């Protein structure tokens, strides 16, 4: 086997397999990190590149990798104390702040901005010594379902380069799907971790609200936002969530008790006697037939494995989308008021000069993209005098009804199951001029955010060659049972397929050889140091 084949094999391992090879000394973290950087250089740039990364961080990533290798080589107590995932590289969604790398949130507003502090999840990655490969693309301020709303260009789906990778975390999902990173961080406000997972054939989990600190994620809707793991397997996702989770004094909404036993649950693979509810309202009309076929197969497999499957009704879920598109923009309009061109971000002064009010108006006009403006205006409307009770107030009541529906359902079953997204990946540009059609992508993922419950998407197979996601939902603090059910389905599907789903993904061309001279990656780098 030559060196190239070896590194190609290396990047296709799971994160836990990589961790094991690092532990036994079979590979070094520098080799592993370099293999991923090589992969990024090969498939992420150029006209037809994936463009999952807005910024690549080779020097720091390799330095951290070398530290891990040195500690391991020296042995002793420090080597013993290394985190199990130490040395396994990770990518970070670009709405999570990092010292030493630009954080743009996919917005012109923050182009070139360098955070003076780290998000708590980043601090945890640094403490556990996971090399950070770079920052991944997203819809501007995480607002969107396709990553086409990024101010720095769209990301392509590794399964079909002319299709969307989902959103808002399309960069993290595509990076993991295309073997540019084994693990990544995402943020999920209405499905931004799970829906990209579904359409790229990867695993994405939204923990229970408060399970992972939000300190240092650029807030969209604070009562809905949750940071979570992106990976290729359920076990990898569980291992990453365990690393990220726990109480944080800097986030008053973080749970005081940690969510434990996630990886153990993901290793169980047993669903005998587990009660699984099919949500009547989350299938049928609006769902693509191929998605429903894979979903029905998943249910049958779980039944055959010994789970008790029943149908449950959550009648108020049909109002969840409407409630979400009032609550989320309301909170977003307030959260984004801080981008005023005074303390950070870019300031635009009108040609004729002007007062601070005029400068703010020009700054926000130039700094925000269309979708962000749409949501700010929508939120300002829903919160305005005369409409507050009818819109924001009513939406909050629906939130209560959705929670009650879930409480009732979880009094009968342990987990709920549904398709993650009503369709497979759609074409780039297909829905960009139809905001409402774009919003409908989130119909099955939004209810979990409204209720604060955990949700995960796992690959359920292919429909017309494109990945389909199956979603599991669990009660508040029920992350472990969610991982257990998801891992059980994953292992049985892989048995049926004879291999992981990703082995069926098309090979990606090395875009370096096809790139016309002069078209580099510089125009696509969102500020700061070039890759």
């Amino acid at each position, binding site marked *: 086997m030559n060196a190239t084949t070896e590194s190609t094999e290396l990047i296709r391992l799971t994160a836990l397999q990589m961790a094991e090879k690092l532990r036994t000394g079979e590979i070094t973290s520098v080799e592993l990190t370099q293999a991923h950087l090589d992969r990024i250089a090969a498939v992420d740039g150029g006209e037809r590149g994936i463009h999952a990364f807005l910024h690549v961080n080779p020097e720091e990533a390799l330095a951290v990798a070398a530290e891990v290798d040195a500690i391991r080589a020296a042995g002793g107590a420090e080597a013993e104390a290394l985190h199990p995932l130490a040395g396994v590289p990770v990518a970070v969604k670009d709405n999570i702040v990092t010292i030493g790398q630009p954080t743009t949130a996919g917005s012109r507003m923050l182009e070139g901005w360098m955070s003076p502090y780290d998000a708590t999840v980043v601090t945890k990655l640094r403490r556990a010594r996971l090399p950070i490969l770079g920052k991944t693309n997203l819809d501007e301020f995480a607002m969107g379902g396709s990553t086409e709303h990024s101010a720095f260009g769209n990301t392509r789906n590794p399964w079909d380069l002319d299709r969307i990778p989902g959103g808002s975390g399309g960069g993290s999902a595509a990076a993991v799907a295309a073997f540019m990173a084994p693990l990544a961080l995402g943020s999920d406000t209405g499905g931004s971790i799970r829906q990209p997972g579904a359409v790229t054939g990867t695993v994405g989990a939204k923990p229970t609200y408060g399970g992972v600190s939000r300190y240092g994620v650029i807030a969209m809707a604070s*009562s*809905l936002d949750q940071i979570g793991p992106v990976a290729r397997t359920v076990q990898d996702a569980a291992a990453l969530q365990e690393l990220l989770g726990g109480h944080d004094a800097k986030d008053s909404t973080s749970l005081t008790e940690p969510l434990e036993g996630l990886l153990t649950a993901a290793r169980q693979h047993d669903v005998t006697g587990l009660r699984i509810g099919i949500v009547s309202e989350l299938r049928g009309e609006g769902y693509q037939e191929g998605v429903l076929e894979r979903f029905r197969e998943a249910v049958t497999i779980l039944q055959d494995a010994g789970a008790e499957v029943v149908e449950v009704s959550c009648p108020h879920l049909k109002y969840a989308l*409407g409630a979400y598109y009032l609550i989320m923009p309301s909170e977003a309009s307030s959260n984004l008021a801080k981008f005023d061109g*005074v303390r950070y971000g870019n300031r635009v002064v009108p040609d004729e000069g002007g007062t601070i009010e005029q400068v703010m108006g020009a700054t926000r006009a130039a700094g925000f993209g269309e979708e962000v403006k749409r949501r700010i205006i929508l939120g300002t*409307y829903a919160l305005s005098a005369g409409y507050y009770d009818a*819109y924001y107030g*009513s939406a909050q009541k629906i939130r209560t*009804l959705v929670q009650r529906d879930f409480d009732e359902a979880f009094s009968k079953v342990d987990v709920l199951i549904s398709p993650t997204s009503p369709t497979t990946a759609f074409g780039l540009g297909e829905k960009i001029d139809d905001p409402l059609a774009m919003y409908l992508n989130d119909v099955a993922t939004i209810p979990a955010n409204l209720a604060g419950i955990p949700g995960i998407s796992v690959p359920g197979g292919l429909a017309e060659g494109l990945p389909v996601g199956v979603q599991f939902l669990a009660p508040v603090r029920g992350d472990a049972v969610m991982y257990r059910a998801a891992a059980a389905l994953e292992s049985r599907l892989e048995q049926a397929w004879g291999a992981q789903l990703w082995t069926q993904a098309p090979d990606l061309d090395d875009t370096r050889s096809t790139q016309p001279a002069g078209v580099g990656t510089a125009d696509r780098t969102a500020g700061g140091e070039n890759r």
Partner: protein
Amino acid sequence: MSAITREDVAHLARLAHIRMDEQELDKMSGELAVIMDAVAAVSEVAGDDVPPTSHPIPLTNVFREDEPGEMLSQEQALAMAPEAEDGQFRVPAILEGE
């Protein structure tokens, strides 16, 4: 009730401090009308007996000792400001004229 007019959008844009040209106002009012039609049903679902939920997990106030923790230095806080002077953020004039 959801008719959202072009004038409404112009007013909201002023409130939100986003300068918008005529073309943008036209486009946005059309789009917002469609979105509001789709979400308007929420106002007809819940009665007065349903309490609103503002947060998914019930929380009580979180207190801590009033002691300084880690903080940014003045230099760090100002490093990324569009304009700073004498250890402070520099802003354009608040009032028109001199």
